[in-house]
């Protein structure tokens, strides 16, 4: 029996196990929406397509399953661009389905036409413009395969309207193979032996774990390696949750706003074991002074990451979980007692700290309280800026997939829609979006989505009426000239929440923090808590841009 293209898409999504999609309808995707109407797939109607992409992203990060978003042609599709770029930079598997004008209208500057495959070329893992209904099922099958295997990433499928209306037999290919898409060749036995030996011979080793540990599901193996060999572990922003930050071997986050002891440990180490991390500039600081005495073992599924930014002595290309499973039994246990003592001393001398001032609400305190009230079991999403760095510093992530943040692209407005996606994917979890007053205003319309779908997310706005991180840079590097960072006329977030049908709470004093958090968690509605915090609080420690990791300001 022949099906229409739209029916084929729905069938294919069902075959891929898709339970929920995030989207926004429009003319070019009407046939698809018509078929979704009868389908068992849940559709979350966002209020802006950027929200759909971020929600799909948050869903993917929280659940480990690919996220799916839908937009119409032209402006609908271009509104996805930021979300697609965000998923690309952080290697998150999302499938973006975009409507397109009819094949015969393509290239004629037709109404709501945009060359979305062209526009997104640099920010997708792969993309398809499906011009023939018979290619639809194979394209969707391939898209899911490509998005979720190897180094994950976003795949876009552009769907001309007439293709979704045309008919074809539905045959879902059970298997697909591509000549040009193979998983990388496995490392040799010698390579793993040499890496294991290098670990045994090191005296000051550090594990530097990134998002690859989370996406590979290798947290248990990482813990096993660290405990067996007694090696301290620092994580990147995306690696938060890959290793329990309550563990004695945890150094917390490294890099620009990392802990001093993590940055010292990396700087004075003789061996860095990079696991699913890519030596981002926010992590390494000035490259030529990064870990000058260290040899580097780099475990990564993407061969192109080996040697991209730093020299690697022992490359192990492969899925992190498989590599660690291979490595752990062979690893020789190094003598790290003195090293761990040194690190303990650094921890004692340079703890993360902030000054409590009477009558002034400190953002760090708010985050600590969120951690305590949720016992570290919440799913946290963040916006971008100071709020994000305070969250990374003071919320100790314990489990993978519980700390969701826009790392590579640094997308303001990510946190709220990502929280929606996370809550949809994990309905029983307590979800907090840790937000800034600037960032939340980029996608605050998604409050309506949260209300409509009864998603009890909690939004903790650290409100200093500034674009805080930019203001901090202006303070430190531009002589306190606060050009265009004063958000003096920030809206009344309590009223805003109420306008959308959510709950709003304002907190101005430390003693109100805990009850507000408890009230929010108990509420079945989305809750916005407007924490009015110290206006000019800074995020410390801080490695100034272009400096070495040891040259930290403050803290």
């Amino acid at each position, binding site marked *: 029996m022949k099906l229409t293209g739209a029916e084929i898409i729905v069938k294919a999504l069902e075959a891929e196990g898709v339970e929920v999609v995030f989207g926004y309808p429009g003319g070019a995707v009407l046939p698809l929406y018509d078929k979704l109407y009868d389908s068992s797939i849940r559709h979350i109607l966002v209020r802006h397509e950027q929200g759909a992409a971020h929600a799909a992203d948050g869903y993917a990060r929280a659940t480990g399953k690919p996220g799916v978003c839908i937009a119409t042609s032209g402006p609908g599709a271009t509104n996805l661009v930021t979300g697609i770029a965000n998923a690309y930079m952080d290697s998150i598997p999302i499938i973006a389905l975009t409507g397109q004008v009819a094949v015969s209208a393509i290239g004629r500057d037709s109404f709501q036409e945009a060359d979305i495959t*062209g526009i997104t*070329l640099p920010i997708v893992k792969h993309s398809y413009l499906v011009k023939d209904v018979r290619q639809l099922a194979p394209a969707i099958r391939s898209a899911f395969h*490509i998005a979720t295997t190897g180094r994950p990433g976003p795949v876009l499928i552009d769907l001309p309207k007439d293709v979704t209306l045309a008919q074809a037999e539905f045959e879902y290919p059970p298997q697909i193979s591509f000549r*040009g898409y193979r998983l990388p060749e496995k490392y040799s036995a010698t390579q793993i032996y040499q890496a294991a030996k290098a670990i045994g011979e090191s005296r000051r080793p550090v594990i530097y774990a990134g998002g690859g540990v989370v996406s590979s599901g290798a947290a248990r193996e990482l813990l096993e390696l660290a405990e067996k060999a007694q090696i301290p572990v620092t994580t990147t922003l995306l690696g938060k949750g890959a290793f329990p930050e309550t563990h004695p071997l945890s150094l917390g986050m490294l890099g620009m706003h990392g802990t001093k002891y993590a940055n010292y440990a990396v700087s004075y180490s003789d061996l860095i074991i990079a696991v699913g991390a890519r030596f981002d500039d926010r992590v390494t600081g000035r490259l030529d002074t990064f870990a000058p005495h260290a040899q580097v073992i780099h475990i990564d599924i*993407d061969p*192109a990451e080996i040697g991209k930014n730093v020299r690697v002595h022992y490359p192990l290309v492969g899925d992190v979980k498989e590599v660690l499973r291979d490595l752990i039994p062979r690893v020789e246990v190094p003598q790290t007692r003195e090293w761990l003592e040194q690190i303990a001393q650094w921890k004692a001398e340079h703890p993360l700290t902030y000054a409590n001032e009477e009558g002034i609400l400190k953002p760090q305190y708010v985050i600590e309280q969120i951690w305590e009230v949720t016992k570290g079991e919440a799913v946290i999403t963040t916006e971008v800026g100071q709020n994000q760095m305070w969250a990374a510093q003071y919320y100790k992530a314990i489990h993978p997939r519980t700390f969701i943040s826009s790392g590579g692209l640094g997308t303001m407005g990510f946190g709220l829609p990502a929280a929606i996606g996370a809550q949809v994917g994990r309905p029983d979890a307590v979800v907090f979006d840790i937000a800034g007053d600037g960032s939340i205003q980029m996608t605050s319309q998604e409050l309506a989505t949260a209300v409509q779908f009864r998603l009890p997310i909690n939004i903790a706005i650290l409100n200093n009426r500034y674009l805080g991180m930019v203001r901090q840079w202006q303070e430190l590097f531009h002589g306190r000239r606060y050009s265009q960072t004063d958000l003096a006329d920030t809206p009344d977030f309590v009223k805003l929440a109420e306008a959308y049908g959510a709950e709003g709470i304002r907190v101005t004093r430390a003693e109100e923090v805990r009850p507000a958090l408890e009230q929010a968690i108990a509420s079945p509605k989305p809750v916005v808590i407007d924490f009015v915090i110290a206006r000019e609080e800074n995020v410390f420690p801080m490695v100034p841009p272009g400096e070495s990791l040891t040259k930290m300001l403050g803290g």
Partner: protein
Amino acid sequence: MRHTLAVLVENQPGVLTRVAGLFSRRGYNIESLAVGQTHEPSISRMTIVVDGDDRVIEQVTKQLDKLIDVIEVQDITNVEYVDRELVLIKVNAEPPVRGEIMQIVDIFRARIVDIGQRTLIIECTGDEGKIRAIEKSLKPFGILELVRTGKIAMVRGPKYEED
């Protein structure tokens, strides 16, 4: 240093954009790129000449290899290969100098493919050195137009063993 890459890709629309886009967005400069279908109609072959140190070339190669439509990437710089380029040169050729130009054409084993009132079009194939040399030799007459295909290259086969 200049490297020559032989890249097999799926013969599909948009593949050239993906390859060229990868170079431009990562700031690598393509010196020459020639592309055409192979004996296998579903596969095209690109010969790309790119300038960069070993680290850059390694990144280029790895990033190219990540593209789904790229089947195989080979850096053939350091193996023996045959390379050719085709050039068409339209040169000023008033009757008194035509004889001289024809001699040059003969020396380079090139061909005259069009004669105009005051011009000749010369076709020449060869490696880069030869193309440069004929261009230089014809320059004094006044080159009006010049078009080059970019380099194509093929690795030499294994040699016959001597008895």
